[in-house]
């Protein structure tokens, strides 16, 4: 089977995706499927509320181990609200920049200390 469906509601058993710990469970499943070169459909059906803390753990961290191209080609999201999609897009852009420039945060601290 080349396609895998991951239903967030069924993974965490809750319509509120708020805690990073729950995001971690989704991350583990996504990582496993993507490592096996599967095409993954991630469903946000019945999810009422999403925090960026959850999305950072569930999806943002994928950019550490997978390239942008791999994720574009193999991961698809469905049944997400527009609010949720806005949050997810922001999490994705943040993750790309975080892993591309790992020294950026330290530099921002140094800049304050030099002021």
């Amino acid at each position: 089977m080349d396609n895998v469906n991951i239903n967030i509601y069924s993974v965490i058993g809750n319509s509120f995706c708020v805690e990073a710990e729950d995001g971690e469970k989704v991350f583990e499943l996504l990582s496993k499927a993507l490592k096996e070169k599967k095409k993954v459909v991630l469903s946000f059906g019945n999810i009422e509320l999403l925090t960026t803390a959850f999305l950072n753990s569930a999806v943002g961290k994928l950019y550490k181990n997978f390239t942008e191209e791999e994720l574009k080609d193999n991961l698809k999201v469905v049944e997400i609200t527009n609010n949720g999609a806005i949050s997810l897009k922001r999490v994705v852009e943040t993750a790309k920049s975080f892993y591309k420039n790992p020294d950026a945060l330290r530099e921002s601290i140094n800049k304050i200390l030099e002021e």
Partner: protein
Amino acid sequence: MEVLQNINNNFGSYQQLISFYEKHKDDEFMNISISIRSWFAANMSSALGAVLDILSNNLNTILFSNNSEGAETILKKNLFLSYYGNYPKKYDKYHTTIPFQKLKQTDGTYFKEYIFNQLLNRDEMPHMSKAARDSIAEAIYEIFVNAQMHSQTNSIFVCGQFFPNKDKIEFTITDVGKGFKSSVNNHFNSNLTSVQAIKWAVQDRHTTKKDTPGGIGLARLSEFIKLNQGKMQIVSYDGFYEYTAEHEKSSSFIGEFPGTVVNLQFNTGDENWYSLKEEVDINDIF
């Protein structure tokens, strides 16, 4: 007798709570008597509750007396005084209180019910679209999740107040964890002040999570507060930070609050602010 005078959502009132805490933080087995005079902003029960919890954990006895009638009434209605003696709940005729609660770090599910039952789904709330309601819930949750992370095994203190005539909700979340300064300085081995650490942390994409991207919650909350014409205050140890659409203020306290207070003011009368959000193509996310 300690007097807390005219406690409101401002720098001077937080300073009063800090000075009170600094004076008693090393007390053990003492009776600490408090009198609340004139006004007490109900949501500030969250910050005061956190301070009193630490003092109670040192086996001090907290006693309230000679409170102003107005303050005592509101603190009976929101159940704050029930934590400190035989104060029966007072009937909330106008149904505007959002009760004081001491939560465990693991009470995330209970917090969901609290937020919706006590705040967002109440009949007194003005008509708001689901998107608007969800945005407020998300904003509050981002702060609660931060508090959970920072509080470690300690409690989290929440309280709010609804002002239907002013179309305003004040909601406050306090944790007695390590605070912004310590989180940032431990992570980067730096020596930022509390104010510098808070101002750094509210910037987009600034996070102290190890090897995990983040830092969106507080930045997004600031943007939301700006659109909503609301207000956000952060008190963390000796740092004070306030953000509104019109201004950004910061200052340092004399002494330290034993944790972090995030105080949010939402404007419930504005129906337009959430519609400014963009549309996202879900086929172009990654």
